[in-house]
């Protein structure tokens, strides 16, 4: 049986797809057979971030509708062993993801994979609900910014009531936070919510903090998950998050400005 993880947020553009690609790749690098599914019907993007956009033949909805089988639709990653991608459909039909269809595909994937990572679309509509419904746990991606934090809290509410686990009375979905686009120098100037602030407001465990980093844009330009960029701060932060996800205890890094200038040293101790 696979463990199903949903990467969700409520708000768009916070880093869900970046995180899905990083987590799935990280798990595969650790030898866990992993499938990552793009639930963003009509706005397929995970394929670009994973760098497999030219190899898409069939998609998630094709499999649900029986136009293709999973073996035909799954794309085997070229760089990383143990990693497969199921792209989203570009159909405009928002109802294409039926509950029974999604369940069937997840059940079939569960036979073969250890982890299934579900990249949720933004919002709290059908696509986002479907991505979360069958999950065993959630990672809520948040930016240190008011609307993102509030939306994350709404999403936490949905995860605790509108998932299969919740409806079966098995309790809310276990959820952890991933704080991304974190800018320590702005936090130090008091212009951005800190990790502690966000943890306190949402009262939820922190899986990781990923700094705002040029390397994310570079990686997406190249079609390579940023976690493969071992030199980069964001790549290392994602490695830490994957290790924590797998149960390792690692301290958070990249929380403060590394290189303090002369004045910084003099006046801030």
């Amino acid at each position, binding site marked *: 049986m696979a463990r199903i993880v949903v990467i969700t947020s409520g708000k768009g553009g916070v880093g869900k797809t970046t995180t899905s690609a990083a987590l799935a790749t990280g798990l595969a690098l650790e030898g866990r057979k992993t499938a990552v599914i793009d639930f963003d019907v009509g706005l397929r993007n995970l394929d670009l971030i994973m760098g497999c956009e030219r190899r898409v033949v069939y998609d998630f909805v094709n499999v649900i509708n029986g136009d293709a089988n999973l073996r035909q639709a799954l794309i085997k990653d070229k760089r990383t062993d143990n990693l497969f991608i199921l792209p989203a459909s570009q159909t405009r039909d928002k109802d294409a993801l039926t509950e029974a269809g999604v369940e069937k595909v997840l059940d079939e994937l569960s036979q073969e994979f250890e982890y299934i990572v579900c990249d949720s679309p933004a919002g709290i509509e059908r696509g986002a609900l479907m991505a979360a419904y069958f999950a065993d746990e959630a990672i809520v991606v948040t930016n240190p910014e008011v609307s993102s934090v*509030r939306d994350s809290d709404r999403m936490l509410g949905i995860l605790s009531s509108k998932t299969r686990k919740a409806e079966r009375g098995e309790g809310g979905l276990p959820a952890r936070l991933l704080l991304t686009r974190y800018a320590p120098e702005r936090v130090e*100037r*008091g212009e951005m919510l800190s990790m502690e602030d966000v943890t306190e407001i949402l009262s939820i465990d922190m899986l990781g903090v990923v700094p705002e980093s040029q390397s994310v844009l570079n990686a997406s330009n190249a079609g390579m998950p940023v976690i493969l960029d071992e030199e980069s701060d964001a790549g290392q932060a994602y490695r830490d998050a994957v290790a924590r996800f797998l149960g390792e205890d690692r301290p958070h890094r990249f929380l403060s400005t590394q290189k303090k200038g002369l004045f910084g040293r003099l006046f801030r101790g």
Partner: protein
Amino acid sequence: MKGIFDYFRSPRQGSAKVAKERLQVIVARERSHRSGPDYLPALHRELLEVIRKYVQVGDEAVQMSLENQGNCEILEVNITLSEPERQE
């Protein structure tokens, strides 16, 4: 460009503090609505309408919170007739 004077400012006096306070208030409110019965928002609206027949009050005049104490559910309604001075 940030000048060197920025380094003299004491940390944590910027807008993040306000953001945190506002978020704590709105998250608490939305959580209490979420856990409460569906009719709470409508009850809130109608209470406001009734009060406004007699006194002019703002939307924040009626604050409701639902609490569980043992097997007893308590709906606390606070009605503030004159707005307290804003602290911002």
